[in-house]
């Protein structure tokens, strides 16, 4: 799958009902956990730290304006147990990422909790997910 990092846009892909318990230390009240969107963009940073791993990615909106999306993942120990490392993503990586978006419409989302890790494809390679 060829990913063009400069043609990136969020695509709503429908509803997802979580089948396993979702846990983040702060809960998930700020996110729409029943909605999953797919972002296509470029990683600008990936911070492997507590309380949650956080990545930033540049994503073009429908008007072609580049927006900074902040994606929250699970804490490092849990990400590690799900097969990720601090080197799983690097600045410049072309990424297709699923996320549950913020309810307030901000360009933030959550893609990893204790029990679920949404799909990420980085430079044409799928990262572990569950």
């Amino acid at each position, binding site marked *: 799958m060829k990913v063009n990092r400069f043609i990136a846009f969020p695509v709503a892909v429908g509803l997802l009902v979580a089948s396993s318990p979702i846990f983040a230390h702060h*809960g998930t009240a*700020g996110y729409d956990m029943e909605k999953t969107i797919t972002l296509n963009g470029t990683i600008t940073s990936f911070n492997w730290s*507590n309380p949650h791993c956080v990545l930033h990615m540049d994503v073009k909106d429908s008007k072609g304006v580049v927006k900074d999306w*902040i994606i929250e993942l699970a804490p490092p*120990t849990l990400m590690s147990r799900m097969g990720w490392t601090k080197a799983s993503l690097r600045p410049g990586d072309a990424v297709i990422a699923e996320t549950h978006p913020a*309810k307030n*419409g901000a360009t933030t989302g959550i893609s990893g909790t204790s029990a679920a890790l949404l799909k990420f494809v980085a430079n044409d390679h799928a990262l572990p997910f569950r």
Partner: protein
Amino acid sequence: MRNIKTRLTSILLTVSVFSSVLHAQNAGKKQTAQIAARMPDFSGFWAIVGGSPSWDPSDPRGTKPDELPMTPWAVARFKAARPPFGAKATFEAVNDPVQKYCDPPGITRLYTYPWQFTLIQTPGVVYMLYEYTGVWRSIALDRGHPKDPDSTWMGDSIGRYEGDTFVIDTIGFNDKTWIDQLGHPHSDALHLIERFRRVEHDTLELSVTFDDPKAYTERFTSRRVFKLSSSPMEETLCSLSEMQAFQDEVMKTTTEPLRK
């Protein structure tokens, strides 16, 4: 003659004292050996199965958090709580002591997180190490509770083996932690009874009884199941600087009204 008598008395006394000490030491060693011999094995890293934010046995998801039999004291505290889970779940103006201050979560709340714990059994003391926040506690096997224990985050724990079950009795808590992820409080009168049983090699069952007359009008008991994990425990500390940075970067953005 008098000197000889004094010396003999002194020698007899020394032998007698030495013999008593030796006897006590042997008795202690014997008791320790007996405890060790009947000690069921709880070793391993234990991880929660499923997970639930609540200890109410009839409301594991915390959708009806008002239904725990709280006293007026507890109701007032519960109403003030702004927790991360359950019917009152929120991202805004969070006053969860773990999120706001990186306070120790407290024993029963630790069992609601998706991190592991382990038991290190010695004849006189069992140590429990919790992966989340790196806290630990000791459970004495050879003494009772002090009469008026100091109030601490983890309380004063004593334990005993009842067949294949490890029973932990804890008092002496402070009242700064929540019992769960829903904001339910407890008081410094909390008397906690944990019963661990390894029902299968890979399965550990925990039954917890909360007895806290200042906070709850009835005792209640709930259970959890943990599975043996192949992953070793790793560093998962709560750093206030990291927590605040995360809240500023992610949580505030997700809760503030969107700037057009």
